[in-house]
């Protein structure tokens, strides 16, 4: 099965061959490297930009204004903090400009911790991004979803941000992307650039097919009756694991919702599950002051306060200036499996 980074590459290939993508660009996105995570290797329309994030976003906006369909990359979301004004303009231009122009641009960027990235390769971006009205924000947790969400991001005529969980980029999926060769080794041989000289390398793309994960639609990755876990990105598989272990050991069973879309989020799915279970655990790894998970909690409290059986819980990253390099820092700064399990067990024990 494809890894998430291969899935993104396949989606971009589909985008430039079937969906009109004109430009895939950013720092080190073009040949020879094809992206620091290899997401853009071998793509026909990929090119290297200057080391200038403001120029990257500005160029994407200009290309989109002029009828192109750009996918730009911010190399790490950690380097996207000097462009918030441009992102705001991209998000408000249609509203402020009487709907004259569409801005069909995609911004993709690796987000979150898990690659021993120290301060500047461990940031989360979704809480910041969720504040950008006019944008749509997605964050897959599997390769197949990455493929389907990337296609939606490209097709949608509005600015869409694709946050790629750094920690999951090299993780393989459980499902084939439609058109993906069955054999993993074959996929690798066909689309991964060789180490060393790549001057004459050409990918041999498999004929991947259209597969859409619509924006605003979550995925119920576990079904249960006793509690609702809401997560996405790096922490999603941990939540699923925790739910499985707790169910195994205690019989306490959970709905585990992979939001997939941060905005718009799948409120129907959340609401239905909360109504059913009355117990809520929200998990993400962004910092805990003014966190997107707190928004979801607010919606739940606002609309389902009287459906809540026990105190709802939110697990998040700590409000500290960064994630340190020594593993002790990361382990204790952002949610990990033991902490998620403990929170779930506590939630299960709360008396009604």
């Amino acid at each position, binding site marked *: 099965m494809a890894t998430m980074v291969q899935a993104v590459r396949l989606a971009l290939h589909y985008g430039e061959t079937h969906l009109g993508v*004109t430009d895939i660009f950013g720092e080190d996105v073009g040949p020879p490297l094809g992206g620091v995570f290899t997401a853009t290797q071998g793509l026909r329309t990929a090119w290297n930009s200057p080391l200038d994030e403001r120029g990257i976003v500005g160029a994407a906006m200009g290309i989109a204004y002029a009828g192109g369909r750009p996918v730009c990359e911010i190399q790490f979301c950690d380097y996207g903090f000097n462009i918030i004004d441009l992102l705001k303009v991209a998000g408000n231009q249609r509203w402020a400009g009487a709907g004259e122009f569409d801005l069909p641009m995609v911004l993709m960027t690796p987000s979150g911790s898990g690659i021993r990235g120290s301060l500047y390769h461990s940031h989360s971006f979704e809480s910041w991004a969720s504040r950008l009205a006019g944008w749509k924000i997605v964050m897959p947790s599997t390769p197949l979803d990455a493929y389907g969400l990337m296609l939606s991001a490209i097709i949608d005529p509005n600015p869409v941000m694709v946050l790629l969980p750094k920690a999951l980029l090299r993780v393989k999926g459980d499902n084939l992307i439609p058109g993906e060769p069955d054999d993993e080794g074959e996929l690798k041989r066909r689309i991964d650039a060789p180490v060393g000289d790549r001057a004459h390398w050409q990918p041999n793309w498999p004929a991947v097919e259209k597969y859409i994960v619509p924006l605003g639609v979550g995925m119920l990755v576990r079904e249960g009756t006793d509690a609702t876990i809401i997560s996405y990105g790096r922490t999603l598989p941990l939540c699923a694991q925790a739910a499985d272990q707790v169910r195994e050991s205690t019989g306490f069973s959970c709905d585990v919702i992979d939001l997939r879309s941060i905005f718009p989020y799948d409120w129907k799915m959340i609401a239905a599950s909360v109504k059913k279970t009355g117990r809520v655990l929200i998990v993400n790894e962004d910092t805990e002051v003014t966190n997107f998970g707190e928004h979801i909690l607010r919606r739940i409290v606002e609309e389902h306060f009287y459906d809540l059986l026990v105190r709802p819980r939110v697990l998040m990253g700590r409000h500290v200036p960064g994630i340190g390099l020594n593993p002790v820092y990361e382990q204790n700064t952002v949610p990990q499996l033991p902490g998620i399990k403990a929170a779930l067990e506590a939630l299960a024990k709360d008396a009604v």
Partner: protein
Amino acid sequence: MPKKNSMPVKDRAVKAGIATGEEVLPVERCLQIHRIMVLARALEERMIKMSKSGEGFFWIGGPGEEAFNTCLGFQVKKGEGPKFDYLHFHYRNSATMLAMGMEPIDAIRQMAMAWTDSFSRGRNFPSHFSRKAWNVVPVSSVIEVQFAMAPGTAIMQKRHGDGVTIVVGGDAGAAQGDFTSCLLWSSRPGNELPVIIITMNNGWGISTSHCSQHSCEHTIERGKAFGIPGEVVDGNDPVACWYAVERAFRYSRSTRRPFMLEAMVARLNGHSSSSGALRSDEPDCIAMFEDRLLAVDVLTQSKIDQIHSQAHAECDDAVAQVMREPRPGFGDIDKFTYSPSEVDAVYPGDYTGLP
């Protein structure tokens, strides 16, 4: 780099006109430019009045920039899509829009915050234009971000036909990194872009003088390190402006490379209504042009007066009409946030509040 006097000989010789140095602007063109300059001034003055009368709130605009802006507007290759010119304006370009064919009432609708305002539906400040049919991308108040976007439209233009991108900003704004981003992205080796990078140098950023903050007198000097040619022009002289703009267009359109233009202009009504929009004693490009037109008997004083009063009347009528037009209502707040999408389960049409 184009030469100053590269204007075809016939244009210079065959027709009488107004001359600056060896450059002669034909009489008809002068009259056309003059009319738009006067109309632009009347429009801005009417909008300043609106900002004081309560028919509008905030005013910002281009009195003092009419000569250059009009010459720019007349020479734009107007149309929709990458085969035509793209325009990334700042907030003082109403004369350019009028020269391109905008009706004064369009600007007044925005000033009056009417729902009929086609640029922003009563949402944005005046002179924050947006018109897809003419490739005028939305003007934002954020100084200099247009310079980050301009290379993008030019990237597309380089692939289709001979359109160029025009980006306009003030002198103080050139301190922002985005100005340099524009120079850099427009001059990538082998990927040079057809961008005309324009600074309207009025010597001020609100209350701060250019010379107190900038060691270089002219922003075009910044282009040299990037191999971008440029020219400084007297923005009060429509003849000089016309040909400077013409040279810039000719260079960028034909070579598909960037060019810089810096117009030395006046800020006749101060920064904005926040600083009173009071008339300054800087030179007035319209009065100066009229002196020249009078001196060669191209216009009489009474004809000039008539042009002015017609322009004022047109603006007054426009205000009167706009006052009868609908205003936005409560239900309009979300509109135009999203373009319809076939892949969005929550917002297949427009934004409709939280999911």
